[in-house]
């Protein structure tokens, strides 16, 4: 049994310790907001915060999350949409929206670390997140609009 904190709640899971964190979240804990896109950590759709750092949860074995703190896209909206989420909705910055969970997590981490991030900073931060619908520009604009400190 491995314990970890997910979205502020202590949980114990009995999955084998090499189970991908994403599978534990989606199938074990019912947190389906982190999406499965590739299973290889190459598309970004499953990104979560592991001890405040964005990681692809499909490529993170459960043992790496033992006694750690995990925040998912649902956790970021625990007190209502966070500023990045609010801005993405206002900018209608999605088409299919399958990639957007991971982007919300990555962009939130970026703005926490760098509140005055530029458009290039945002694009670089999202480099490992794939969007197939071609919504890149709207997403970058929405993230920039979510900054609390104008650049």
């Amino acid at each position, binding site marked *: 049994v491995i314990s970890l904190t997910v979205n502020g709640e202590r949980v114990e899971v009995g999955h084998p310790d090499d189970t991908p964190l994403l599978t534990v979240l989606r199938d074990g804990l019912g947190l389906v*907001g982190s999406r499965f896109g590739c299973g290889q950590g190459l598309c970004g759709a499953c990104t979560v915060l592991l001890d405040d750092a964005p990681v692809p949860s499909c490529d993170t074995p459960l043992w790496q999350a033992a006694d750690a703190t995990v925040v998912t896209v649902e956790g970021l909206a625990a007190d209502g949409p966070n500023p990045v989420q609010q801005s993405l909705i206002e900018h*209608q910055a999605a088409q299919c929206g399958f990639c957007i969970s991971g982007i919300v997590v990555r962009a939130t981490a970026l703005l926490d670390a760098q509140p005055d991030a530029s458009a290039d900073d945002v694009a670089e931060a999202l480099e490992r997140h794939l969007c197939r619908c071609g919504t890149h520009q709207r997403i970058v604009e929405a993230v920039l609009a979510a900054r609390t400190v104008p650049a």
Partner: protein
Amino acid sequence: MSATTTTTTTTTQRVVPPHVKTNPRLGTWLRVEDGVVLVHVGKVELGQGILTALGQIAADALGLPLSAVRIVPASTSGPDQGLTAGSLSVTQCYPALRHIGAVVRSLAGPPAPLVEEAGPRPSRDHDRELSAYLNRIGTLDPDLDLTTAAPDAAITPTSVGTDAARTDIPDKVLGQPRFLADLRPDGLLHARVLRPPSPAATLSSLPRDWTAPGVTLVRDGSFLGVLGEREDAVDRALTALSDAASWEEHDSLPDERDLASYLRSAPSEPTGASDEHPGQPTHTASYSKPYLAHASIAPSSAMARWSDDGSAVHVWSHSQGIHALRAGIASALDLPAGSVSVEHVESAGCYGHNAADDAAYDAALLARAVPGRPVLLRWTRSDELIWGPLSPAMTGTLSARLVGGRIEGWSYDVWSQGHTSRPLYAGQPGLLATAHRAGGTPLPPAADPPAAAGFGSLRNAQPSYDVGPRRITGHHLTVSPLRTSAMRSLGAYFNVFAIESFVDELAAEAGLDPVELRLAHLTDPRARAVVELAARESGWGEPLPESVGRGIGFARYKDRGAWCAVVAEVAAESDVTVRRLTVAADLGLVVNPDGARNQLSGGAVQSTSWTTIERVRFDRRRVTSDDWESYPILRFPSAPRVGVHLAASDQPPLGAGEAAQGPTAAAIANAVHAALGVRVRDLPLNAEAIVSAIESEE
């Protein structure tokens, strides 16, 4: 700029729209529940925001505020509106929903609008009248025949023409369950299929007593699947199954480095489009594109549950055509169509006929082993890239007779596999697992949609210009080395790339500006307006830094859809960077301008990815593009800035989804030529292609 909106549109509704004729019962389309009209449509949400746009059309048609209308996800119990494809959803639903709304208004009598010519009315009265109107709609006879009812003609546009917010975006941004793979009904089992490693492979051995903890094996010829309660156990079992199975493989694929030669020499049949006599050409050029993958961010998935007695199956699918899928599954399982029902659930963006239908059939096959239990199947990323239908490789040769700056003769030959292998396309179910099950035979080569559906390989093979006598010939391959089907704009992507590149070559030959040459050969005023709009908004003719070039591409999609011109600004040095795209389009009346911009812009960016990066790789035996490293797509730092400009129009609405694909490709190729003086005729337009084009010019 947004579409012009007239205050009141009066139309004569004497002609019954085609989709109302084929679905004449009122109850098929709508019912009232909890004070909201639930509208059932046969079109599905693919990430394009269609359900929001259709809600706007329905709200106006019914004389209701947007909040009193909800579009219900499609199911086989609702109207059959064919596929959600071809940029046709708005075009087909607009007249249908307006007809239905007009019938409802004539029978149920909507309240007068909140603001009348005499001035505003008390809103309290209006709310009460609205609720009474909704009740009256609720009591209409569901069996009412919409084809004989007399519609009330006047429609006040209130929602149509506004940037109504998408209804699905909040769930997605907040990480709520929304997608097919998020379904978690009681008793759920997870499932995976182990696909053969190559197109011609068959299972040679798997131990008879193979087992893995926590799963059940389903085995039928070369079709292997595992299902179980825990997803981690199912994934582990898939790996173990893959290790235990051995396959007999054969080389069956063409030489990927010379697809153009392969396409020109493979068995094919001619499909003519025009046969005039264009005279002796003065200029000839050949172009090509590789196979492309849909590369949706989610691998395909589906859920199926059989009735306890095993006589009927219900399927949850992200198919573009749930009715055809139902017929395909019924045919493949030898069931009456009434024993199969399908409902649509969203998945990641869908850009054509991907593996959704195949996954639905897989789920039905696997769930048959456990009647009464819902089985959620998900494909793997590598299977999605390897086994999903591909957009076919194409090649073509253009010739023209150029006399003193005028094009006076034109011919075009284009070679391609077919562009559709949707369920039942060749009189067979056409679902992937039918080829892998015991006794299965290889899937037949893809067909091409007929002229009435806008062609496949020959889509947009006709130039939009006045080019004198024209001869246009398609060469449809009768073999199928790799499975192909419809991807966003079908043959139009390549044909427009080739034609619009060639038009630029002719302009250079004639010493004319590319925009000038186009306008000199265009008579259609809406075409001219779109080309001029793109040129103006892009700053056409203004100076650019060294190694940066501008290029234009134009087409009217399917010769009957939206007019679209794109200007690309490209920096070409060691690699090609598309810096900026200016997209101008005439979509007729625009239902949701913000949604239309999102679609056009997304289409142009996706086409940028296809054009500059993408190519399905394979050796003589296996497809080797099986992950995001071996099939890269455009990333955030490389995404161009896009400006979309819509022509104001109150003409019938045309779709936006596919119009930009071909013009963007041509605009990029023409911009590379403007930047470097090199003509690249073989896609993708990357550094390697530029080097090889320079070498062939030297």
